[in-house]
């Protein structure tokens, strides 16, 4: 029998249609402005949640719902102004250990949520927010490691009582010159035992050993630098209070950070982009600073400048570095001056302990190091230049023996203390990062983009529907039904995959609307041809679909190949375009061939037909 679908085929098409409708439903519900409160480490207790609820009520802002789930609080409010008001109040009250994030909570009904139906994930160009691409300077991380090895080697050699003349860094090598070549076997034994990461090279000079960071070790260091930066960025972003941040590694040494809804980009940049680290060094009080200023720094010391511009001589050896800091918080010391309380990890604590034991009463300085990035054009070439700014931010006398916990004072303002502690708490970055791309979309533009996208979709869709109905009559209407079905599937699949919908993505859907009727045009023209050749309507339908199928497959496949290549090479919003195009091409083949065929079979199948409305 021609033009008849079996029952199971009809049912599976209809079931698929229904599923698509259900999963695209969440997109019809809007969002509530909401505030989300959580503790950085612990879960909130019921008592804390009740406190928060009471606090919100003091603002007088009408609370839509108040949810306490999984140790987090989500308070839905009626408008964005109330949202800001409540968030500001809570941030003041809750302090540093809590994250207060602005959020747009979907109003999807519970039964849809329970089957995992979610609205499409809107890209930053539609919802507003900031996108940063950060590049980690992994070479700097390797250099830092070299520096560390340098220090550790001195210590190790001293401990092992191996006498050396010099340890110096020279063209990628750490060169150890021993006092006598006799101690070389001992040294090699030590290196083999404790310094796996170094490749040993023995030059002609018998009392020398050259060391280099091995390739595998360098790779590990680089990988670690990126990983540590990711963690650090995650912590910093949490401090910023963003509801759904995205932090992803991109390529070998880049990290993408997306902060939906963030408007204060300068603050976000300040927090994310500055690489700050601290070094604790002893102050050299034995030599004359003025001599150093005139160009004669004593061996073992280096000249620095304090914030007020005064020169100061510091010991070249670093006591601890920022990556040994595990926590830092701003507070006031006993005299009410702003201060930062710092906790160290094990290595840092033991180093600090050893030093403070022998150095009570000596001044210790904190050097704050910032990496600022500049792009300069030199001889027509773009050259990225990294400037290392070193500043002594505080000099304090060691008052007693301490190791794990201590305070730094001498900061200008509570604001400075807060900012410094924020940067330190989030952990010092292992390697400097550099913002290499920024894309910010303000909230008004995001909404504009949604509106424009919707408008051009509706108009484009209506024009195609009208055109098809007028030109192909009943068959055109059937194609239109399939077209609507196609759009529902695209929306449902996008919602299920939670793929990012961008403005070019919407353009992709609109383009799909125009192109997906192509399959139907091919089929219908073929049917017309068959009728013109004198075939019966029934067999014309049959062979029209049959003959057009191979053509549709070939022509859509090439389209698909291009879309996939676009997906593979595209970034950001272009990727969003490729995604909708791929989904659109695939689903349009299904709806335009199988969907229309089902309806045509219902109307014309198993009947005697004189004439087709085509």
């Amino acid at each position: 029998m021609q033009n008849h679908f079996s029952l199971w085929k009809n049912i599976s098409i209809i079931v698929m249609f229904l599923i698509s409708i259900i999963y695209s439903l969440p997109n019809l519900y809007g969002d509530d402005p909401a505030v989300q409160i959580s503790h950085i480490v612990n879960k909130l207790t019921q008592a804390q949640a009740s406190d928060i609820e009471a606090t919100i009520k003091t603002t007088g802002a009408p609370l839509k719902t108040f949810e306490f789930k999984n140790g987090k609080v989500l308070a839905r409010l009626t408008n964005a102004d109330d949202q800001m008001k409540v968030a500001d109040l809570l941030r003041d009250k809750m302090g540093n250990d809590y994250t207060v994030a602005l959020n747009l909570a979907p109003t999807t009904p519970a039964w849809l949520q329970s089957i995992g139906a979610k609205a499409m994930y809107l890209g930053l160009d539609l919802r507003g927010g900031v996108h940063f691409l950060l590049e980690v300077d992994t070479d700097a991380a390797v250099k830092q490691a070299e520096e560390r090895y340098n220090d550790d080697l001195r210590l190790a050699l001293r401990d092992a009582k191996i006498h050396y003349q010099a340890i110096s860094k020279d063209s990628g090598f750490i060169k150890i010159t021993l006092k006598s070549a006799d101690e070389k076997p001992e040294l090699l034994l030590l290196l083999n035992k404790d310094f796996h990461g170094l490749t040993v090279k023995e030059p002609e000079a018998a009392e020398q050993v050259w060391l280099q960071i091995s390739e595998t070790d360098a790779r590990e260091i680089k990988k670690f630098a990126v990983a540590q930066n990711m963690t650090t960025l995650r912590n910093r972003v949490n401090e910023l209070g963003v509801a759904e941040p995205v932090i992803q590694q991109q390529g070998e040494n880049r990290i993408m950070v997306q902060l939906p809804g963030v408007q204060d980009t300068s603050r976000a940049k300040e927090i994310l982009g500055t690489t700050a680290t601290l070094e604790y060094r002893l102050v050299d009080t034995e030599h004359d600073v003025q001599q150093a200023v005139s160009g004669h720094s004593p061996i073992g010391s280096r000249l620095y400048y304090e914030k007020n511009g005064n020169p100061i001589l510091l010991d070249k050896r670093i006591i601890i570095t920022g990556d040994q800091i595990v926590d830092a918080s701003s507070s006031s010391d006993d005299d009410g001056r702003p201060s930062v309380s710092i906790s160290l990890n094990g290595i840092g604590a033991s180093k600090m302990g050893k030093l403070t034991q022998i150095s009570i009463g000596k001044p210790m300085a904190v050097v704050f190091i910032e990496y600022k990035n500049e792009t300069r054009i030199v001889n027509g070439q773009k050259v990225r230049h990294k400037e290392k700014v070193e500043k002594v931010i505080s000099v304090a006398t060691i008052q007693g023996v301490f190791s794990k916990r201590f305070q730094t004072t001498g900061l200008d303002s509570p604001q400075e203390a807060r900012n410094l502690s924020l940067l330190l708490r989030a952990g010092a970055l292992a390697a400097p990062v550099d913002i290499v791309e920024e894309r910010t979309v303000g909230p008004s533009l995001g909404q504009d983009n949604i509106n424009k996208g919707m408008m051009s979709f509706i108009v484009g869709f209506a024009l195609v529907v009208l055109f098809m109905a007028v030109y192909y009559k009943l068959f055109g209407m059937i194609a239109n039904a399939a077209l609507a079905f196609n759009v529902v599937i695209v929306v449902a699949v996008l919602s299920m995959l939670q793929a990012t919908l961008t403005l070019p993505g919407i353009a992709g859907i609109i383009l799909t609307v125009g192109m997906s009727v192509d399959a139907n045009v091919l089929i219908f023209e073929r049917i017309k041809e068959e009728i013109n050749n004198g075939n019966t309507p029934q067999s014309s339908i049959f062979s029209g679909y049959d003959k057009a199928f191979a053509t549709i497959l070939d022509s859509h496949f090439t389209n698909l190949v291009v879309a996939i290549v676009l997906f593979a090479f595209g970034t950001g919003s272009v990727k969003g375009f490729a995604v909708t195009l791929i989904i659109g091409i695939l689903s349009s083949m299904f709806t335009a061939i199988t969907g229309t065929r089902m309806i045509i079979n219902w109307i014309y199948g198993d009947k005697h037909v004189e004439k087709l409305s085509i």
Partner: protein
Amino acid sequence: MPAHFTLKPSFRIQKMKTTNINFIGNRHIALIFSGVLSLISIISLATQGLHMGIDFTGGTLIEVGYQQPADLNALRQKLDAEGFESATVQNFGTAKDVLIRLKLQEGVSSADLSTKVLESINKDVATPASLRRVEFVGPQVGDDLAEDGFLALLYSSLAILVYIAWRFEWKFSLGAIIATFHDVIVTLGLFSLLGLEFDLTVLAAVLALIGYSLNDTIVVYDRIRENFRALRDKSTEEIMNISVNVTLSRTIMTSLTVLLVLVSLFFLGGETIHNFALVLLFGVFFGTYSSIFIASPAALMLGISPADLMIPLKDNSDIAHLP
């Protein structure tokens, strides 16, 4: 008698009858036209080049919105005074929206640039501008994006070349690539001539155009292949002509539906999507043209003949050795 529903006559469109136009015989006209068009495009691309957006060159772009039409001259003076001499200021879409572009600058920390610009234009102003969009692309990223874009073009072309060669024949494959390159070059040439900005979204549109143009060409090729096998008594040229003619109504219909949505996108989609829609409008127009006028003659001139697409007749060989 049951009620009969038909559309009112006034609503009817004159249906396209199967035409019989000698496209292949008159191919020289189209080839000369396309040759001239391509030449102009290549010359323009070579001398004037494409106006590359910051996605590829690197730089900063800031879009701000005002409550009332913006005074561009005042803005320019302000930016000059603050040391942003290289800034270009222009309206974007409406008189209330302003787009400020900055090149990568010497000695200025690039990531902070947007913040500084916004601060300086909002200095001593009663109604400050609201920030609508910032795009900053560093030089390294720009180079990477350009490289990725080039690779995308290369790989998609290769993938298609292989696919068509496999499904059809290498002469068709090459013919399709020629037709598609023609569309891309002419579209880019127009972009170059008009001095329109070429950015990432535009590149995406160019790739989508490749997909579309091929789609059109393949439909025609598919019919040629079918007719090569069905109409054995006709010459290659005749078969091509018939195939182009019978698929003509489909080619035009599909182009029309796509043009409809593109027109809607062009007029209603907003500034950011403007050039994207424009590329596709140009592209669909030329894609349709090339699949009718260029693709088949190209395959013909590469020496395609029905013999290239004959299915080896196994049955015959089975019978041949029988007595």
